[in-house]
């Protein structure tokens, strides 16, 4: 397969995914609304004390981001699986890992990036001090692609199952634990003026690792689900 053809295929897939996403944009808003609702529930549940909210802000925002991402992951491959497009993609002879990567990138742009963009609003609600805001945005910018990449593996494994969505969350949450720990620690450290670059560095390393490895696992999972 020529390099040009692969690149063209990648772009074509991205374009297609955007078109499909645009057509069902109402559906895509649901996880984001869920994100906002979940964050809103915390002050309602634990009380509006500014100090308390500020304390738990990084964790709450990140956990809400995890939950919202998992919601949006279920439909990652499902509609293509159901109408046979996925099978065609597997048979097409294009590198399946590249196809998986294209789908994951599209997912992040449509589901993960909005979380990054919404984070200042969430930070305000949770009374996160200003020192933490930039790091929060950075941690989400680095972390949400990892959520998409690892989540795609789970999505591919469960796409052929009837109620794969519930199982998907059980599968990926343990895998998300290191990311959650590092990200919230980075934000908490930034708030009290402690060093945070180590955490961000490790997260970036995780991003690069998942970027190179996860598409292959996703491809294997897709082949498995279609077999």
């Amino acid at each position: 397969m020529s390099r040009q053809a692969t690149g063209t295929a990648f772009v074509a897939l991205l374009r297609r995914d955007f078109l499909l996403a645009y057509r069902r944009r109402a559906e895509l808003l649901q996880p984001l609304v869920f994100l906002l609702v979940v964050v809103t529930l915390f002050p309602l549940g634990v009380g509006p004390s500014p100090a308390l909210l500020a304390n738990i802000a990084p964790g709450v925002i990140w956990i809400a981001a995890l939950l919202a991402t998992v919601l949006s992951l279920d439909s990652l491959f499902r509609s293509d699986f159901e109408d046979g497009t996925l099978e065609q993609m597997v048979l097409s002879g294009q590198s399946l890992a590249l196809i998986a990567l294209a789908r994951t990138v599209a997912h992040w742009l449509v589901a993960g990036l909005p979380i990054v963009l919404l984070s200042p609003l969430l930070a305000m609600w949770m009374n996160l001090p200003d020192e933490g805001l930039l790091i929060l945005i950075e941690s989400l910018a680095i972390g949400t692609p990892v959520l998409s990449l690892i989540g795609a593996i789970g999505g591919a494994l469960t796409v052929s199952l009837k109620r794969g969505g519930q199982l998907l969350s059980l599968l990926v949450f343990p895998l998300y634990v290191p990311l959650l720990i590092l990200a919230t620690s980075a934000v908490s450290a930034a708030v009290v003026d402690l060093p945070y670059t180590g955490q961000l560095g490790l997260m970036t390393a995780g991003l690069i690792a998942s970027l190179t490895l996860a598409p292959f696992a996703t491809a294997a999972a897709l082949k498995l689900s279609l077999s």
Partner: protein
Amino acid sequence: MNPIYLFFHKTGSPPWFYKYSGKLIPWLWALFLALTIYGLYLGLFVAPADYQQGESVRIMYLHVPTAWMSMMIYGLMAIMGFIALVWRIRIMEVLVISSAPIGAAFTIIALITGSLWGRPTWGTYWVWDARLTSELVLLFLYFGVIALYNAFDEPRKAARAASLMSIVGAINLPIIYFSVEWWNTLHQGSSMGSDGPGIHPSMLLPLLLMATATKFYYGANLLTRARLCLLKQDHRKRWVQDLLSKESN
């Protein structure tokens, strides 16, 4: 033909595996029982109580081996899963999925015994220390693999999915462990479960005996479950029919 190659080829055959593992199982149970009885005798009655922790240190003889097994079994599942996926060996698939419930059982015991050890020794049933937290996440990984396997209709496809998930989980397991350990050093004051200058030999022997005993438990239980799985999958095949008629005669 090369005898090693022949051996592996034979173990891949379900009826051969069924027959010979059946012969091995009683020996594995016998060794497990012998080691456990001796190990527990030494650990519960002969070995001294700990200087700092008192009698509750005796829980260590159950907690530590089961924690080791919980991690070892997951690692084995990943390795066997890799072999199963790459070489499509059905026996490997069966062994992977038969290992999962055993690993989960060890993890649950490790968590409960760890919790019971913590209460008299350090005053609390649960603390988010590195080891307990990682162990809890490991339990969720086990549940995930088991749930994934049960969600598929076709057993071989289910086993392959479970194998892939085990591999992904195993790669993440060290990352999870180190991240939790690092997170823990940020948050906790007292160090929990410090081993001190090294373990006294009178305590080391029962610990090693119990650790070895759990391996035999795993072997015996694994083969038992694997045989059951093969019977279920192959119940229409000739070798199972022959086995049934032989048994009823």
